[in-house]
């Protein structure tokens, strides 16, 4: 009942998805249809079913969900291993992003059994059968599991995520005490995988104007930096009913972060700082 770390899998099985129609809030081109079945090879003993979202930009078909039967005895331990196995041995057209395979690059973020996580750090034996694999939520799909993140990165660029300060004296560095440096712990570790932003209902409804948890966590990371001199300017830019205040503290972000960070808390810190500024 109590989830202590974001890596814990959801345990209740009563409600696997919200009781809304499958096509709810989705244009007809986005509605998912049943796809094909890819059977396991003869003699495979330990088979897991993987239901994977597919979209082929070169055809006229709507997105579909294919079912792959993967022999776990012949597969690495992580979900990413299974996806690579499918691409190598079953269907080479399966398309997904991946790079570091150890949870530092953020490329293989996807919706796994209904919540967002990195495919490379999710073990297959933790996942209920069938495993459902979708792209990160609410993105324009380029192909299969690859979503277009241009908007997310444009929102990131909009907060101007770099040190804004006057040049330091030529003979010394920009110093920071260990205590000041500690203020950045829990925020500098973000890998920008956008699991949180994609899992945020407020960003689903107002993603065009609401910056979303990943970008707001970065905004706080710069507000919390003792070397940055643009605090007032940054707060001015954030003080907006949509950019910041569409956050209703749902906290799906903190629940899903694959690095165990706390975007919800970062946003609360920004709101408090704005309140303090009002006096």
């Amino acid at each position, binding site marked *: *009942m*109590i*989830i*202590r*770390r*974001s890596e814990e899998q*959801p345990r209740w099985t009563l*409600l*696997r*998805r*919200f009781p*809304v129609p*499958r*096509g*709810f*809030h*989705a*244009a007809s*081109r*986005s509605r*998912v249809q049943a796809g094909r079945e890819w059977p396991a090879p003869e003699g495979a003993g330990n088979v897991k079913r993987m239901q994977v*979202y597919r*979209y082929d*930009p070169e055809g006229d078909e*709507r*997105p579909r969900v294919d079912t792959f039967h993967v022999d776990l005895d012949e597969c690495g331990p992580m979900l990413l291993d299974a996806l690579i196995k499918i691409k190598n041995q079953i269907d080479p057209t399966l398309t997904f992003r991946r790079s570091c395979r150890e949870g530092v690059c953020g490329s293989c973020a996807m*919706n796994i*059994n*209904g*919540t967002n996580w990195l495919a490379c750090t999710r073990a297959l034996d933790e996942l209920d059968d069938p495993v*459902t694999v*979708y*792209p*990160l*939520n*609410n*993105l*324009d*799909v*380029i192909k299969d599991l690859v*979503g*277009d993140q241009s908007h997310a990165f444009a929102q990131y660029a909009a907060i101007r995520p770099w040190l804004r300060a006057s040049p330091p004296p030529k003979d010394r560095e920009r110093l920071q005490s260990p205590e000041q440096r500690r203020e950045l712990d829990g925020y500098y570790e973000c890998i920008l995988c956008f699991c949180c932003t*994609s*899992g945020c*209902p407020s960003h*689903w409804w107002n993603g065009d104007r609401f910056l979303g948890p990943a970008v707001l966590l970065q905004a706080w990371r710069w507000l919390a930096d003792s070397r940055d001199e643009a605090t007032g300017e940054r707060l001015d830019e954030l003080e907006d009913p949509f950019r910041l205040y569409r956050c*209703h*503290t*749902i*906290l*799906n972000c*903190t*629940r899903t972060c694959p690095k165990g960070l*706390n975007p*919800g*808390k970062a946003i*609360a*810190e920004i*709101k*408090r700082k704005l309140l303090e500024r009002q006096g």
Partner: protein
Amino acid sequence: MTERTRPRSPHVQIYRPQLTSVLSFTHRLSGIALSVGGVILVVWLLLAAAGGSAFGGLNAALGSWFGRLLLFLWTFALFFHLCNGIRHLFWDAVLGFELANIYRSGWLVVVASTVLTVLTWVIAMSMPGVA
């Protein structure tokens, strides 16, 4: 390749319900329910003050089994919105954001609002003249 409009990947249609999102949606829904209930409460009071047969009609409707069911749900909406609102006040002070505490306070809100609702109805139903 011809230019085509890309599909949007599914979100609310597939995202797993969690205590975080379920309680947030419930907070919004209970707020809407309370706005409607507030209007009915005002109408009921105005009719009571005005006297006449219209008050009797509304009062009887609210006293029917369906009316009582609605009143029960409104009572829950009131206590849930109150308790979860207090949870939000803590968050506004940047307190209770550890994941375990988010879950603890969430379940506390569920239990507290249920107990308060049942308690209110036990007391109300045991009052003289209420059956």
